[in-house]
């Protein structure tokens, strides 16, 4: 999919108009961003906005995400932390006593 995010009022207004006029290429619309289908037509609409508003329009390619794309230790850390008994425990402390990755260990690591 294509993520189109806008950074000015005018760009936002035009994005909304595009979404209204070309529903079939819109996967999802958010406040000042939208996901367009990864088709030539979706790209055409995104490029129109880019032409008109320059860098006030950001276009990114979004690839589908599955939990399985993430290493097991990260998935396990997430599910263990969400199952914690003390809701106020910060993750850092939660991970310390267990066999879970420290936040810093994950921060620098690209998927």
């Amino acid at each position, binding site marked *: 999919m294509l993520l189109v995010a806008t950074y000015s009022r005018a760009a936002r207004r035009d994005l909304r108009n595009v979404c209204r006029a070309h529903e079939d290429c819109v996967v999802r619309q958010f406040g000042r961003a939208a996901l367009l289908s990864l088709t030539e037509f979706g790209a055409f609409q995104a490029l129109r906005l880019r032409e008109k508003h320059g860098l*006030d329009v950001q276009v990114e390619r979004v690839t589908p995400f599955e939990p399985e794309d993430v290493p097991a230790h990260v998935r396990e850390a997430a599910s263990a932390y969400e199952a914690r008994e003390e809701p106020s425990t910060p993750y850092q402390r939660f991970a310390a006593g267990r066999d879970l990755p420290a936040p810093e260990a994950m921060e620098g690591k690209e998927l």
Partner: protein
Amino acid sequence: MRVHVRGTTYESRVVDLRGRPVDGRALAAAVRGERCVPAVDAPAATLVYGYCGYVGPEMGVRTRTALAAAARTRGVETPHDDAIADLRERVAAIDAVEPSLPPARKSVADEDIAALRESVAATRGRLWARERLDGDTAEVESDLRETAQTLATRETERTAAAESRQQRREAARAYRDRLERRRRLTDRLANRRRDAREALVDAVSDRYASALDDVPGTTTDNSAGPTPDDPFDAEPVPAALAVLRVARTDAPVVLETNRLGTPTSAAAWLDAPVIRC
């Protein structure tokens, strides 16, 4: 003040232009310095004149906003003023000019590089075989040089393309970060301005209400009604006149209403120079 209309110059605190072909709104715009004709030579207009500089039929007025501007002319300050000045400075300091990005370069496909590498290896193999057979190697050597050169060029192009892509992304991201920061600051600024406006209105609302009561022909405390009307729901003309009475008005007010009687009595009531048209 001095007003110049179609060859006639008027110089007085009260100028009566009734019957002269002159547009009140255009005059008010001239008072605000937004137009040069008709020529008006008078003290500079404050922000209040943007709301109430012209009082006449079919006018509208954002009473609270106008009254806040009126309070400013009286030197009223609010606890938000420092924060507003600070936020304005910070907004102004943000460079919101779109940067020009380095030109996009077409990248070289991985397959092309792989094919060239393979070709270099194959040519090297051919050269090696020729050398083993003591054959003529000149042609193969030149082939090898050429292919290796092409590979080096393509690899350089690919590196340059990747670098330019990276630079483009970074410049675009930094620019959008600045826009985002500015948006947050302008949101905060708008909130602070709203708070300041409320404080300003509060500071002079009593004066405004009594000025409104004094506008001839206005009956806000109508005994027929069960409750007195909210002064901020007053009709535009009396509301604007009351705001002007609260404000310090050194610049001329353009009136196209008989509400305050003669131009001279209007000037006295408003304590302002008046152009009646």
